[in-house]
């Protein structure tokens, strides 16, 4: 057996999670659909946020889905790459800011 853990066709089966828990599945997808509706933020802005988060959580399904969604919404490659850099900056920054903790421990333990 040499089957990869991630398979692109599994994305289409996402809705099947409701099969084993219809009530929770329904609640999740209702919530999910409401989140992405046009409101204080436009659906286009939400799509770009989703793309950035998809890179942060490194979900290949979400990257596939929100690149396609962005293309449909007329988001261009410069906008998509900027969103990915926002994700990278926050993710990298989150590592780096812990350096403060390292510095404090270092200073405290040192003479």
């Amino acid at each position, binding site marked *: 057996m040499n089957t990869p853990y991630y398979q692109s066709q599994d994305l289409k089966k996402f809705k099947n999670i409701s099969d084993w828990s219809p009530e929770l599945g329904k609640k999740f997808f209702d919530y999910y659909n409401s989140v992405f509706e046009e409101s204080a933020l436009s*659906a*286009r802005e939400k799509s770009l946020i989703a793309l950035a988060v998809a890179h942060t959580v490194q979900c290949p399904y979400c990257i596939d889905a929100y690149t396609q969604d962005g293309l*449909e*919404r*007329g988001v261009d490659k410069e906008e998509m790459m900027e969103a990915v850099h926002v994700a990278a900056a926050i993710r990298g920054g989150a590592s780096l800011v812990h350096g403060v903790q390292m510095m404090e421990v270092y200073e405290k333990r040192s003479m």
Partner: protein
Amino acid sequence: MATKSLKGRVHDLADSSTQLEFLSNGIFAPGGLPSFKEKLNTVQAEALKPKSLEILQMNLGYMCNQVCAHCHVDAGPDRKEMMSRATLEHCLQILKTTPVTTLDLTGGAPEMHPDFRWFVSEAAKIGVEDFIVRSNLTILRANKKYYDLPHFFKDHHIHVVSSLPFYKKDKTDRQRGEGVFSQSIQALVELNKVGYGKADSGFQLDLVYNPSGAFLPADQLALENDFKKALKKEYDIDFNQLFTITNLPISRFLEYLIASENYEDYMQLLVEAFNPAAVANVMCTNTLSVGWDGYLYDCDFNQMLDLKVASPVQHIKDFDLDQLQTREICVSQHCYGCTAGAGSSCQGSVA
């Protein structure tokens, strides 16, 4: 990007029967995705039938100054097919004797037809409610002999419908050819100058958005707002409406889908997005398409696949509206393009 049509390159897909065969096998072979006819049967018992005829769409010929990567017509400078004067006259006769309210001239670039101005003048005298010319925009700047077309359009109260796949250069030029975006912007400026696209001027200028790849168009109104904001801010350009049109898997777009290995995913996308509400308003139910050679089709896409109307009347010289109205509309798997998502027609989304 190719500089010649499929026909000019003697490509297999230049043959419509090869395209139809491709669309009927592979993932649509028995046991695979449902054919369009099967899918239609799940939402309505009957085949698609014409409603009353409203739109006469005439394809004046396949010659064009552009060779767009997604062109369903396989148009280009190397295509010489042109509608004859006799067929043009038959069309004028139909305008006089039928309840057609919209005349829609397309191509190729219809402006390149040698009888274009004569025909427009004659048809305008008959006085259809909505007289559309589908202009690729760059033709208006391609040669000095076309520079006065914005005035000519205005003088004949033409409703201009123009292709502009995006409000930025990169996506536009990748689909339509290097330099197309800047020439299109120049043409839009010229159309604005004579009043086209300006609020309350009465001179309608609509744009057509085609996705620049293997994906569906987004919500028509949301994209219209993006286009309006961007074109106004960057170029001070105004237009009236944006029509989103889904790329149908035929001709050069089919070539692209196959070459980029997107064909199966794209067809699955179209099938999954099948929308019964769009079926109710597909354009083939109120349109008749006339080919350059006078043959009649349910739509411009069927024309390119050589699917003539399923009627004893197949040519404009034998035109008989009552008989044509009893026909069944010819369908194949490309029809999924018009029923996906918000639906698609030459007048934009339909659901």
